[in-house]
């Protein structure tokens, strides 16, 4: 190690990139469950609202007036939007239709694998979603948060090799609805709108949580 090579030598440090997937997965689980428990104790909305309001009275007053005006505008716009076709339900229905088209094109063995993994045929699930009155689209973050809150599932992992390994399924968005028996169902869709993950009341879903 020569002293004039020092900066170059130190830069070589960053070649030491290491992954620790087992620790990562477990820490993620612990943090998310902890976060969920904390949410029931604190009121994050108030914390955020407090940040929003700021410190001095003048800005607080301005913020309150601004918030009031915003609420009024949102209410007017919301009523306008509801009367149009572009409602959250219409968007969710559009996504279900696209997903049905995608799933009709996937090879039968891929559909069979989904049925084996989740205990329900993907097209049956999508048809059920289409009939639901409370059908909604979810972002990936909302989908994962819903899995945790409603089913205690942390992340979209599937256990394989009799539980020795976990495979992560990347769902980029989701759909949520209530089935005819009144149970919540969450569906995870990939970038091509294919159904890749499902969580619902059936016991077969319960084995797949991380």
């Amino acid at each position: 190690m020569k002293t004039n090579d020092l900066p170059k030598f130190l830069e070589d440090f960053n070649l030491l990139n290491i992954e620790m997937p087992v620790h990562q997965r477990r820490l993620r689980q612990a943090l998310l469950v902890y976060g969920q428990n904390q949410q029931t104790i604190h009121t994050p909305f108030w914390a955020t609202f407090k940040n929003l309001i700021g410190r001095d009275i003048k800005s607080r007053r301005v913020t309150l007036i601004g918030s009031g005006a915003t609420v009024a505008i949102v209410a007017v716009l919301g009523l306008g939007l509801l009367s149009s076709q572009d409602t959250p339900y219409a968007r969710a229905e559009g996504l279900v239709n696209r997903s049905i088209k995608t799933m009709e094109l996937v090879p039968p063995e891929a559909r069979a694998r989904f049925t084996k993994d989740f205990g329900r045929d993907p097209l049956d699930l999508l048809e059920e979603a289409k009939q639901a009155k409370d059908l909604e689209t979810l972002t990936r973050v909302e989908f994962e948060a819903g899995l945790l809150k409603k089913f205690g599932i942390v992340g979209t992992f599937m256990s394989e090799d009799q539980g020795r390994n976990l495979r992560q399924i990347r769902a980029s968005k989701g759909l949520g609805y209530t089935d005819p028996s009144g149970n919540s169902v969450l569906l995870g869709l990939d970038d091509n709108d294919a159904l890749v993950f499902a969580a619902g009341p059936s016991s077969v879903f319960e084995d797949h949580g991380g």
Partner: protein
Amino acid sequence: MYTVDLKTEREIIKQAQLDPSCFGEIFDAYYSVILGYALRRVANPVVAQDITAETFYKALTNIHKFKWRGISISHWLYKIATNELRMYFRKSKYLPHSLETMFEQVGFDPIDKQNLAEEIVEIQSHLDRHQEYLRAQKLLLILPLKYQEVIALRFVENKKLSEISRILDKKEGTVKSLLSRGLRLLRRHMEAQQTQPFVSKRIVVSAKVGAINSNEVGGII
């Protein structure tokens, strides 16, 4: 590693501030970054895991205080991790929230049966194969913490002066002079160790490292 752009990151932070269950996305994006930083500083996988766990635990519990200023949350995470490392190096007994204590707190039993200890052993043997890195890491430890931090962030983590300034809450000019003095000091230590005989080298080094075991440092450098 999973990456997000600034616009998406801002949205994720907003959601996580309202609902901590949405914190997973931030965690996925920066876990490897923070673990790597901690590991390169301490060269000990168990300590690096604890520092990473504590960093994300603090980030999660304080996410509602985070204010978006148009820069990535990674700088905030680096700042928390740097403070944790500072505490680790200063305190003889550093007691962070380890993974085990977190699981105890939340009463959570992971279904993943893969052995965490095996992963640690694997990482340790990976580190042992990088003797050059271990030598340099030990050499850095001889320096006062303020120099270790700037040198590690600049040369190991490849951070710009402006980024280091934000992470350490110091002016850019101060960072620059710390960097220059730190490098000068590091060179001096290297030269001293290259010219002195092994026995006296051990004495010189151990006198400067303070809390660090003299045999450990003298034996490796």
